[in-house]
């Protein structure tokens, strides 16, 4: 089934959805970028390709309080601060971001299940928006994501001919659209097919269209020992910009804060680019930036695929290409690592 609604009437759709659920959607900001905001009357859907921060925030927020410890005399009172999520809608996430949820799921929903992640995942309905205007930094196709006809999410959406077309992909999606009430009208698929075709034509012309990640699962050590890391990492500043805008980075740290009234335990994103990442009593296992840099890309391109049947922990959204202060990014790494030869071979070249 395919529905549509005039782009001028989107507010009605959001209003209808908001009756039962909180609706989040990308909205333009003054600085020319977009971020997810909670819909309120008048909030317009952004046309920008992507938000600054990825949509992973909805399930894996940067900061999440876990527990509170209070001391009363000799007793310690513990309060669980994790909250049950309410139903919400992510409207207009891109195919790359939506694919990233799958990558996070493998980690957070595996045993032991991260219940707080789980409850958020369960309460979310996702509307995936096809990419009308892919950009030069896009390389999701390298990971078999189709932004012309998004396969992930509960609803697939297009904006074309002044209409927003909505196609439920799951039961949850159907229920969601059913809840939208009368503002939707049924439509045939002609416009959508045309739009998908138009997008595919663009995708073929993307500068990174031919990029393909090398399957280096068999060459783990060779890649690890590649001399190229040294050079690639040599100017890395060790900031966490790439990891924090990345939809698939999933590392976190757990900290305690002493408020004076008690201890609040929270978890927050961590970055493998930081020198004190996985700091232990014996010090850090990765002493130089080269090792930290390598860790990040080994994880995304080798370790994760080894563990999860060849799936890469990257969705090609291009955020790190835009945000790295020195423009060193996963694409450059992927290019360097294609055709890594076993150590010892081809030294003379």
């Amino acid at each position: 089934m395919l529905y549509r609604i005039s782009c001028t009437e989107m507010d009605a759709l959001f209003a209808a959805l908001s009756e039962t659920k909180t609706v989040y959607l990308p909205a333009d900001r003054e600085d020319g970028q977009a971020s997810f905001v909670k819909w309120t009357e008048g909030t317009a859907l952004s046309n920008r390709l992507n938000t600054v921060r990825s949509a992973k925030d909805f399930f894996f927020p940067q900061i999440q309080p876990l527990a509170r410890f209070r001391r009363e005399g000799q007793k310690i009172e513990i309060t669980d601060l994790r909250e049950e999520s309410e139903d919400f809608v992510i409207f207009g996430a891109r195919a790359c971001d939506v694919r990233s949820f799958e990558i996070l799921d493998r980690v957070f929903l595996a045993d032991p299940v991260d219940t707080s992640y789980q409850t958020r995942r369960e309460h979310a309905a996702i509307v995936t928006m096809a990419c009308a205007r892919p950009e030069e930094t896009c390389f999701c196709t390298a990971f078999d994501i189709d932004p012309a006809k998004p396969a992930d999410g509960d609803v697939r959406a297009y904006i074309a001919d002044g209409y927003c077309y909505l196609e439920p992909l799951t039961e949850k999606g159907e229920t969601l659209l059913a809840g939208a009430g009368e503002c939707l009208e049924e439509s045939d698929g002609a416009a959508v097919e045309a739009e998908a075709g138009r997008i595919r034509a663009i995708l073929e012309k993307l500068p990174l269209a031919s990029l393909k990640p090398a399957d280096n699962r068999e060459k783990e050590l060779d890649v690890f020992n590649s001399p190229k890391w040294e050079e690639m990492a040599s100017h890395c500043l060790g900031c966490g910009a790439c990891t924090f805008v990345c939809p698939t980075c999933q590392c976190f740290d757990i900290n305690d804060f002493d408020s004076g009234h008690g201890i609040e335990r929270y978890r927050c994103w961590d970055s493998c680019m930081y020198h004190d990442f996985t700091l232990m009593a014996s010090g850090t296992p990765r002493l130089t930036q080269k090792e930290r840099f390598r860790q990040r890309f080994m994880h995304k391109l080798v370790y994760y695929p080894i563990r999860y049947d060849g799936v890469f922990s990257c969705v090609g959204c291009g955020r790190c290409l835009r945000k790295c202060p020195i423009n060193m990014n996963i694409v450059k790494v992927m290019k360097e690592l294609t055709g890594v030869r076993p150590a010892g071979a081809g030294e003379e070249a």
Partner: protein
Amino acid sequence: MSVMEKTAAARQAEWKPKIIAFCCNWCSYGGADLAGTNRLSYPANVKIIRVPCSCRVNPMFILRAFQKGADGVIVCGCHPGDCHYSTGNYHARRRMTMLFSMLSFLGVESARTRVEWVSAAEGARFKAVMDSFVEDITRLGPNERLEDLRCKEN
């Protein structure tokens, strides 16, 4: 929402300013002692922290005080020219001026922070300074622009 408002209102009602005073060991702490010796009363919400010199006061102590619930922070040292370490208060003066200016730039009320010079002989001045500072802070109300809500809960 209404619960939050209520707590805020309740907080406001029973609010008493919390004031942290950093006093240098050689002059202002002595001045505070003299105020005591002379039984010059000032509000009890002023709590004094002894530091060797006003130049020991790190901006992060001040920010920490605000985070942990202080409504006003005052730094007291020897009068210019009288520093036990000869130049400490000159350094303190610049550092605090710059810090306070930055806080004000970020929109924090500038009356929440102060530097005063109080000698060990100025018990009366110590009292007067504290009285006036407490009055200023009371007028401003609770520190909300530099608060950490986690530390405010009870």
